[in-house]
């Protein structure tokens, strides 16, 4: 079948499945809407958490980042998995025992303060919106590439699908849809990874293949790499030949890798849409096991990512170095073993603007190496609509030709780069680069959408719950006499659905008009989660003496510092030289977290201890006995 019809088929089938599940699991009560009735099996809950957690960024961009950064990409791999150890041991069981619906519930009750609750609500809404904007954009990009529609149209389609199952089903609908989405996503990632692993290392499991040997010889442009060389060794050698840093050696500096890993770990443990997952299990024990299963399901994907990243990096050098562009894009170039080195993907992605080729030495052949292929900001090509001698797209970037032939460069051991590659296309283009069958490429489209939609739905739910339950129910419409919401169950469910609709519209708007810094806002979400929720919850459980004054002062200190640092250095053009102890904004959440702890403990030690009933509350959440079902409204 044609690639396009296969894509329609797979994407259509997966969407029909999600909507079917949403209708089957329609929420009838606020408890079902917020925490799926509190009765989700730990394994299923773990699977749903995995889908919720792994976003379009994990599925599409992470392999690209690791491929680009090599060894230092480990910060992302360890950061985004290690946080679950902290979640399982320091947060999940106690929050489950606490037994309400949301993170602001905990903050508000434990610190006996509606002001603390309101601060928590604002954090949830802000963290979740920054995250969801990126997801909606991801949905739009995948749709535009694979369904051949406009990016904006893609965002509208995504909004419609999320609308149906988030608004109708609430947490119950989302949880069961996410289980299905996890299955689609993991299948979509694993199948091409296995194909690649067989092709590049003759090994079935990508995790093992990463340490395997290449069954072919190839020319990296400077010298031949023998067949039977270890993959990672071949990568180190060819990358060094081409002027890159060696793949398996760390270059980022221990200090910054350390800080980034910590911020990602603590941010993971503090993200409200992840934490709320552990309110949905039936028991405290279930909450612990569920965190374990979530990490199992995440690890299945995350241990394949470094393998895919390395395969992709090698394939790029092997397939692109010194091939004739005009023949390559017409699929006329042959590999050394006589098979066809298909290059039509190069033209497809060049047409979409994510690849550029600048024939600097005019030999009609592609040269790939370290350095900028195009002059100008970040080396990005600015296409001017004209075509060059080989049929490539020309740009308005300043000329930067070189006079050396590829033979001369080989002799000198220094290749001049001619290729611009957007790192986000690594996973999407990988199967095409490797010449995998069409149905594999179609599955990737369905997987990318599953990843983006499942995360978007979880985030939208976190936002709508924060508004209807925490802000309306517990702050604005609270009956001072009973301490409960004045809204009826029906009215609150209606408010939750309305809030979800508004959240979807705002998210769609942000997806269509991205603030222009979608990649950087991720640092925002993680930094703020690490500096706000993580310490506040830990202190609430492990430090009985922590009182409301300390908690509020700590949260505000952590937030204001982290917020200010990121805004100053990312959005207001702060100079790198002024970094505090050389820490990049992506890792500053770690310092915000430490600041939070210090301020909270100092302030609480000079103010009165919390009232007796709060100390008893802390005693109670520390022991599992008597968890029962999640408390009713």
């Amino acid at each position, binding site marked *: 079948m044609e690639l396009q019809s296969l894509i329609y088929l797979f994407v259509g089938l997966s969407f029909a499945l999600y909507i079917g599940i949403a209708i089957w699991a329609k929420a009838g009560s606020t408890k079902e809407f917020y925490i799926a009735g509190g009765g989700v099996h730990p394994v299923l809950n773990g699977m749903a958490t995995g889908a919720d957690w792994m976003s379009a960024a994990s599925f599409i961009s992470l392999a690209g980042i690791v491929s680009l950064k090599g060894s230092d990409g480990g910060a992302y791999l360890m950061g985004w998995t*290690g946080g679950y150890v902290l979640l399982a041991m320091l947060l999940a069981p106690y929050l489950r025992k606490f037994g309400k619906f949301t993170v602001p519930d905990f903050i508000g009750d434990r610190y006996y303060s509606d002001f603390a609750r309101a601060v928590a609500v604002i954090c949830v809404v802000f963290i979740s919106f920054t995250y969801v904007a990126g997801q909606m954009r991801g949905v739009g990009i995948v749709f535009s590439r694979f369904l051949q529609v406009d990016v904006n149209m893609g965002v509208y389609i995504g909004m419609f699908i999320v609308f149906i199952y988030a608004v109708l089903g609430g947490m119950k609908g989302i949880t069961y849809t996410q289980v299905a989405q996890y299955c689609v996503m993991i299948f979509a990632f694993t199948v091409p990874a296995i194909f690649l692993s067989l092709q590049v290392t003759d090994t079935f499991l990508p995790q093992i293949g*990463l340490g395997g040997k290449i069954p072919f010889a190839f020319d990296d442009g400077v010298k031949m790499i023998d067949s039977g060389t270890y993959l990672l060794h071949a990568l180190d050698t060819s990358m060094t030949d081409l002027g890159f840093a060696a793949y398996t050696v760390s270059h980022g500096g221990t200090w910054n890798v350390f800080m980034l890993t910590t911020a990602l770990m603590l941010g993971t443990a503090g993200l409200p849409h992840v934490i709320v997952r552990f309110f949905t299990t039936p028991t405290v*024990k279930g909450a612990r096991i569920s965190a374990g299963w979530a990490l199992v399901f995440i690890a299945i994907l995350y241990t394949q990512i470094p393998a895919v990243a390395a395969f992709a990096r090698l394939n790029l050098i092997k397939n692109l170095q010194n091939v004739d562009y005009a023949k390559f894009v017409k699929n006329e170039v042959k590999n050394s073993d006589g098979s066809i080195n298909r290059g039509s993907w190069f033209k497809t992605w060049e047409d979409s603007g994510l690849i550029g080729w600048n024939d600097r030495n005019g030999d009609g052949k592609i040269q790939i190496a370290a350095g900028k292929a195009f002059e100008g900001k970040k080396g990005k090509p600015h296409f001017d609509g004209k075509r060059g001698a080989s049929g490539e797209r020309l740009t308005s970037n300043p000329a930067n030709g070189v006079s050396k032939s590829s033979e001369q460069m080989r002799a000198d051991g220094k290749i001049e780069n001619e290729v611009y590659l957007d790192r986000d296309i690594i996973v999407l283009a990988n199967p095409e680069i490797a010449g995998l069958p069409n149905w594999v490429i179609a599955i990737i489209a369905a997987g990318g959408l599953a990843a983006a939609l499942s995360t978007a739905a979880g985030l939208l739910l976190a936002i709508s719950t924060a508004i209807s339950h925490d802000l309306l129910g517990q702050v604005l419409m609270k009956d001072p006499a009973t301490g409960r919401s004045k809204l009826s169950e029906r009215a609150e469910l209606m408010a939750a659905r309305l809030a979800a609709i508004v959240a979807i519209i705002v998210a769609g708007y942000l997806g269509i008009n991205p603030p222009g810094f979608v990649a950087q806002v991720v640092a925002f979400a993680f930094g703020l989660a690490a500096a706000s929720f993580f310490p506040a919850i830990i202190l609430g459980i492990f430090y009985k003496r922590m009182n409301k004054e300390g908690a509020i002062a700590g949260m505000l200190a952590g937030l204001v510092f982290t917020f200010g640092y990121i805004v100053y250095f990312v959005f207001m053009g702060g100079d790198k030289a002024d970094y505090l102890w050389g820490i990049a904004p992506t890792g500053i959440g770690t310092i915000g977290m430490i600041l939070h702890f210090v301020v909270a403990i100092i302030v609480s030690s000079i103010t009165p201890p919390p009232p007796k009933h709060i100390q008893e509350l802390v005693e109670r959440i*520390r022991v599992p006995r008597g968890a029962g079902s999640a408390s009713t409204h």
Partner: protein
Amino acid sequence: MDDNAAQAYWKENITTILKLLVIWFVVSYGCGIIFIDELNAITFGGFKLGFWFAQQGSIYVFVILIFVYAKMMERIEEKYDVHE
């Protein structure tokens, strides 16, 4: 359940968590970041050890840690009779 049992339980819980977090720190920060260059001198198959810890090994250890923790806590809870 009396207060003493609850306190003893809590203490043992904290000790367990700290022990496991030491392992968590050693495999990720220790092997994958701080001593990565030293460990890279050791190779097995096609892997350098530090690189393997940073991109594969630490993730496997994380998974095992959570399940070990859940199992240990179950035992401790029965010992102090505070289980659900």
